[in-house]
């Protein structure tokens, strides 16, 4: 049994007892009133009966007086008048007793009967109005004829009174006695009734006192409960409130809500109004729909919880100091069921900002650790000298990026001019990082490229737009420093005898044919120590290019083999440029050139494509040929892409010959791809290739056969000439 059920029963009992006692009180009062009324009638009758007891004697006496007067011929008028008055009063009083509720009294009946016999005798006497005497000189006063008759009637009445006055008086005395007894009984009844009434009143008062006590106790309990609820709502760290069927907040909420939302006018506020201006419109719409779903009878609470869109809500609000602050709130909903379905929805709100930030820091830290592990594993497969060479190149590139940033700028044009330069420098770094499979560096540069790309899309640029860039640049430089330190440690580990043994073991596992010779003790081969700025030949990049080709094939679901020849012939002066060109063209070939195996087979080609790289010395310098047997370049697709990107107009496109169309490939920002990926889509790569070739005084050409191949040919002058060109 619940507490509420017990309380309800108690209230019903209280109401029943109160009503019963009140009814008893009412009945007692009504009965008492009735008794009092009867008593009053009895007392009046008693008074009348007591008074009437003397009347028969008095009437008899007055009759005697009247007779005496008549006999002595004295004046009889007064006596007659007294008799008349007495008879009339007696008659009236008797009638009053008869009509006063005592008609069933036998004594009264007998008295009335006697009076009815008495009255006809008296009536002629009291009705006499003549002259009873006549005067004569001879006889003096004598009775007149009327007087004689009157005398006779008086005598007759006197005789009747002599016989009946006493019985009438006795009957009236008996009636008075009966009435007295009756009054006495009624008084007893009334006393008893009053006693019952007093008892009932006392019981009612007792019940009222008991009920009042119970009520006071309930009120105290309710007051304590209210106070406790208020304390809970004041202290609890979560925001609590109830939503009604109109999705409005009730009149009670926890104080934490005030701190969370910096307001306190929640009563009657709709849920939508609560979140308005704090969350994006789409989130608000989803949240509102979700709240509506909660009111459905068929909604399963656990299921609803799993689709709660407000599990981690990011809100931005004024921190009270004029600036904005981001907080993370967690909304949880519980349906409060009533007899007729969902009564309320209890909403709890928790400020999980610190947890979210902690989780984010943990995630970042984990991510960082994973990246470092990946980086370390990746670095173990990279020639340390090649790695150091890359780090030097990357640092130099990033310093160049910083130099570009450092150029003073005030206008939109000056800021915008920086962006293209930034793109070119970063693209080269990203390309080489990808080639060496240094994912953490490549992804950082890629996100920096994304930021630059976002800046390009803004209508008006200012220094504020460059703040995130410079922060990212700082992060990248710090990361490069970390990678360099890690490389030094790895080199140190490799230099130790244990490291060399581990390497030897790895070799013996992977190359069983060499096991015998490896088992023979031999002096450790000299391990190169990374040196800053040591120039590396392109030939050294061969394994990195091969692994890059494998990764690209895997990432883009392609199959192709890469053949490279003559890379050892690349003069040191051209190493950096050839390296950049190869990386960029390899990415282009993998993304745009080579078709997927299905497409190739459908076009009667081998499922595996071929990318061929050949570097050779020619009569007037050097030549690099980069060729893939992929889809080739369709001039129409180039023109369409250029028009789509608003680099040329449709009229210009219509007037372009094949040569001019092919030249579009080298324009900054040109790409046939719509989206941006890690390997393509920014339209920077071939622009970088062309610029670096031109910077060396070289030329670049492209020939293609749609569906068959694409071939880039780069011709560079003799390296001495290149040096002089570069200096110039």
């Amino acid at each position, binding site marked *: 049994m619940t507490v509420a059920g017990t309380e309800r029963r108690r209230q019903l009992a209280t109401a029943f007892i109160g009503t019963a006692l009140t009814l008893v009180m009412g009945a007692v009062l009504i009965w008492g009133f009735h008794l009092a009324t009867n008593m009053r009638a009895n007392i009046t009758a008693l008074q009348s009966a007591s008074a009437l007891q003397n009347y028969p004697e008095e009437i008899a006496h007055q009759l005697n007086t009247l007779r005496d007067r008549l006999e002595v011929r004295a004046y009889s008028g007064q006596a007659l008048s007294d008799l008349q008055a007495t008879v009339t009063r007696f008659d009236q009083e008797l009638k009053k007793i008869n009509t006063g509720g005592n008609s069933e009294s036998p004594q009264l009946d007998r008295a009335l009967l006697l009076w009815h016999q008495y009255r006809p005798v008296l009536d002629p006497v009291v009705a006499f109005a003549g002259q009873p005497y006549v005067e004569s000189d001879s006889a003096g006063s004598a009775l007149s004829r009327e007087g004689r008759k009157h005398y006779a009637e008086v005598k007759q009445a006197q005789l009747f009174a002599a016989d009946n006055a006493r019985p009438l008086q006795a009957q009236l005395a008996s009636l008075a006695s009966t009435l007295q007894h009756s009054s006495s009984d009624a008084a007893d009844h009334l006393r008893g009734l009053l006693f019952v009434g007093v008892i009932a009143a006392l019981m009612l008062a007792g019940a009222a006192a008991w009920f009042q006590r119970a009520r006071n106790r309930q009120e105290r309990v309710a007051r304590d409960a209210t106070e406790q609820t208020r304390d809970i709502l004041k202290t609890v760290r979560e925001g609590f409130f109830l939503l009604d069927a109109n999705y409005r907040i009730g009149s009670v909420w926890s104080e934490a809500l005030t701190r969370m939302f910096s307001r306190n006018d929640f009563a009657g506020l709709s849920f939508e109004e609560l979140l308005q201006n704090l969350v994006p419109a789409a989130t608000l719409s989803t949240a509102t729909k979700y709240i509506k779903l909660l009111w459905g009878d068929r909604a399963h609470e656990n299921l609803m919880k799993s689709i709660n869109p407000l599990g981690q809500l990011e809100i931005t609000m004024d921190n009270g100091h004029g600036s904005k602050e981001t907080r993370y709130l967690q909304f949880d909903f519980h349906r409060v069921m009533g007899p007729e379905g969902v009564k309320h929805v209890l909403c709890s709100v928790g400020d999980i900002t610190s947890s979210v930030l902690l989780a984010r820091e943990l995630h970042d830290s984990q991510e960082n650790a994973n990246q470092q592990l990946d980086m370390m594993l990746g670095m173990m497969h990279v020639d340390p000298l090649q790695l150091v060479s890359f780090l030097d190149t990357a640092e130099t590139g990033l310093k160049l990026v910083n130099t570009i*940033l450092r150029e003073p700028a005030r206008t939109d044009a000056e800021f915008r001019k920086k962006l293209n330069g930034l793109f070119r420098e970063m693209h080269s770094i990203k390309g080489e990082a990808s080639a060496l499979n240094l994912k953490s560096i490549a992804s950082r540069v890629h996100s920096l490229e994304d930021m630059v790309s976002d800046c390009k899309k803004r209508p008006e640029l200012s*220094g504020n737009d460059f703040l995130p860039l410079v*922060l990212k640049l700082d992060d990248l430089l710090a990361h490069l420093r970390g990678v360099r330190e890690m490389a030094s440690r790895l080199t140190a580990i490799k230099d130790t005898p244990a490291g060399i043994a581990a390497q030897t073991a790895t070799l013996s596992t992977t190359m069983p044919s060499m096991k015998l010779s490896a088992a023979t003790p031999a002096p450790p081969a000299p391990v190169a120590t990374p040196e800053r700025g040591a120039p590396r030949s392109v030939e050294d990049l061969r394994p990195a290019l091969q692994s890059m080709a494998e990764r690209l094939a895997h990432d883009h679901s392609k199959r192709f083999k890469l053949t490279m020849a003559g890379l050892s012939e690349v003069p040191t002066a051209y190493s950096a440029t050839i390296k950049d060109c190869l990386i960029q063209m390899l990415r282009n070939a993998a993304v745009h050139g080579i078709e997927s195996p299905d497409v190739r087979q459908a076009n009667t080609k081998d499922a595996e494509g071929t990318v061929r790289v050949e570097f050779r010395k020619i009569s007037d310098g050097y030549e690099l040929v980069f060729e893939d047997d992929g889809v080739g370049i369709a001039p129409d697709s180039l023109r369409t892409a250029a028009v789509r990107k608003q680099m040329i107009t449709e009229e210009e496109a219509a007037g372009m010959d094949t040569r001019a169309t092919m030249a579009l490939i080298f324009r900054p920002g040109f790409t046939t791809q719509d989206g941006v990926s890690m390997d393509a889509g920014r339209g920077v790569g071939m622009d970088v290739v062309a610029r670096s070739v031109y910077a060396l005084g070289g030329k670049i050409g492209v020939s293609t056969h749609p569906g068959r191949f694409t071939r880039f040919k780069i011709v560079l002058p003799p390296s001495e000439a290149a040096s002089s060109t570069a200096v110039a």
Partner: protein
Amino acid sequence: MLYEQELKTFVEGTTNFFEVAAQQPASIGSPYLMEGSPSVHEYTGVINISGKREGVVYFTAPKAMLTVLLMKMQENDFSHETMRDLVGEVANTISGNARRDFGRDFVISVPSVVSGEKPSIPLRPGHRSFIIPINWRSHSAKLVVALA
């Protein structure tokens, strides 16, 4: 690593000063990084920060810029002391902004002022600073944020 919001707080503190004091907003130029001690102008207001971040933030401005700024502020006193007070006031505004936004996470010192051609501002060795040019009218000052 410094967060964008933290950098913005210092930048806004500086630009707001110009907007309020001179009724003419300042803009920021192209920010960049610098290793070692960046060159400073004649007057520099410095605040030292410790707690969640460690380092210094300073605003350094040439005399010509401060002179024009004082004129815009209806000041007639262009003495050395007034110039020092002015950069101190800028540093104070930056400090106030930082206190407001960062709360107890940052312990921010009372601003100090250094002046002269090559004042000594201690920076952490081998650490990069963020240099944010503050452009106002035709003049340019620098906000240097060197925090780790």
